[in-house]
């Protein structure tokens, strides 16, 4: 009489001890892999030399941005929100160039969308953790004096810059009203990503850094080399980079 109870208890214990992001039955993961490029060349920090639309040559020392609030669309079906997705992509940290969207329904997905930045709610909700921890992963990506995340941060140098250091620094922040730099990206997957419980598709995205400097407003480094607060310059640059992502390929 006691044995079935014990067995049930053991089973319960096993189930409750499973790690959080092991896919449950009928659930799988999707992996997103980011490649930062300049046009079609790989982005190499420090040493790579590139040319923007204005014709200015430049190199990049820092390239970081938050991607969050992921949604995926089931092929021929509904758009699904992937909860609690906040990732800091940092070109200087290889491990951050790939991340997992967990616990998705087993099916094919033909669209991925996400926010470049941290949604406004998280910017006003107090002390955050994980990728949003200002003392940890988000160090250097948070304005403590004007509470809010730096949604995207690009630094480097160019001979065109008229200051002694020749350095540019673009800290894209602001989440309110006309000067919000938050931008939503929607990407169709011509090859659908097939999520299985035992197979994780990889969606390879390309981010073209040069897009920061053209589009809504062509950036002339001799004029524009420092953006450190919300405003027109920041939101124009955000309009620029809102189209920097494209789908490179999907591996099923």
């Amino acid at each position: 009489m006691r044995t079935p109870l014990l067995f049930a208890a053991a089973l319960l214990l096993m189930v409750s001890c499973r790690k959080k992001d092991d896919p449950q039955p009928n659930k799988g993961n999707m992996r997103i892999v980011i490649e930062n490029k300049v046009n079609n060349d790989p982005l190499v920090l420090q040493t790579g030399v590139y040319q923007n639309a204005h014709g200015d040559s430049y190199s990049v020392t820092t390239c970081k941005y938050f991607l969050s609030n992921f949604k995926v669309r089931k092929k021929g079906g509904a758009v699904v929100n992937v909860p609690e997705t906040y990732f800091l992509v940092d070109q200087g940290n290889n491990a951050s160039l790939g991340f997992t969207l967990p616990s998705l329904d087993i099916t094919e997905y033909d669209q991925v969308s996400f926010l470049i930045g941290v949604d406004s709610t998280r910017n006003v909700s107090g002390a955050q953790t994980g990728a949003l921890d200002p003392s940890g992963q988000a160090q250097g990506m948070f304005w403590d004096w004007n509470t809010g995340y730096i949604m995207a941060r690009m630094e480097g140098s160019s001979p065109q810059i008229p200051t002694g250091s020749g350095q540019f620094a673009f800290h894209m922040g602001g989440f309110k009203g006309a000067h919000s730099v938050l931008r939503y990206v929607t990407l169709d997957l011509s090859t659908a990503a097939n999520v299985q419980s035992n197979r994780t598709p990889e969606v390879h995205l390309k981010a073209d850094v040069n897009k920061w400097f053209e589009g809504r407003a062509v950036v002339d480094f001799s004029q524009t080399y420092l953006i450190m607060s919300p405003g027109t310059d920041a939101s124009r640059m955000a309009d620029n980079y809102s189209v920097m992502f494209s789908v490179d390929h999907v591996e099923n």
Partner: protein
Amino acid sequence: MQMYHPKKTLFRSSRFWKRSLLGILGGSLVIVACQKDPEITSNGKPKAPLDNISFTVPQGWPAPFYTFAGNPVTKEGFALGRKLFFDPILSRDNSTSCGSCHQPFSAFSHLDHNISHGIEGKVGTRNSPPIFNMAWHTSFFWDGGVNHIENQPINPIENPVEMDDKMSNVISKLQASAEYRMMFKAAFGDEMIDYQRFNRAMALFMCVLVSDQSKYDRVKRGTASFTAQEQSGYALFQSKCGACHKEPLFTDFSFRNNGLAPNAVNDSGRAHITHDAADLYKFKIASLRNLKYTYPYMHDGRFKTLDAVLDHYATGIQSSPTLDPILTGGIALSAQERSDLLAFLNTLNDEVFVSDPRFKETN
């Protein structure tokens, strides 16, 4: 077949009881040795009991802005926040704590300091504001740059002229302390110390600091009465000051230019945050509670006395494009009126708050 009943056999065994007793005794010794009671000072003296630590909205007050979501008030959380508040470990050279510039007897402002000296005697440009009734504030600092109290502490901690440390370094120092690990465990369930827990503990301490025991509050609750002079002063206050210094918190938390002449610092105030010219020289309206303990006054502490403040409102207001329209004509008061108003403002001083033993440094 006879069923084996291990329970019956075990509990009848005296060997079981002897071993259990030893185990319990041994375990208790370990527990007692490891657990520093945060309510006992290091020299063994009992600290003020914290069993009555709570957050209650005083009768008639509006709902607070801070919701304590994910951060319920507990005496362990409060004790931890209090210890952190008074601990100079939060500074680079372990010299400067929050309490260095936010003193309990000064309603948590910096008594008699127009601007404060932080690490290595460095000074800033703004007056240390008092800390009370924080749960109702919708923004922090004179320019309102911080939008949530849990993201306020990182500012003085990382400010080079205040505590000059890195938040990550402070957290490492706390993680290295057995006492803090135990207090975090008592407050949050395990020894993990991170940015969120640190700031939630700080928020608990700061938001529990409610000042609602002034004579004014007792009058409002019906347990005291204004004198005739205080009553006259109250009427004057309501007509001449109440639009900005809204009851019962005595501020509406908005940013106004009250006609202070810019000095060499040329502090742009709210405009520093919004970059909006319309916000130039606007600062957060300060509460009028506890003025007795929080001099000198204004964002840069330029007025040492309330008479100096009232002189400013009478004849010292500087005209400017962003001067609050309500102050264009100044605020004229006869000598009697001034005396009455000061008598009323005195009823906003909360002696209970500034002498509350639970809010003091306990080491």
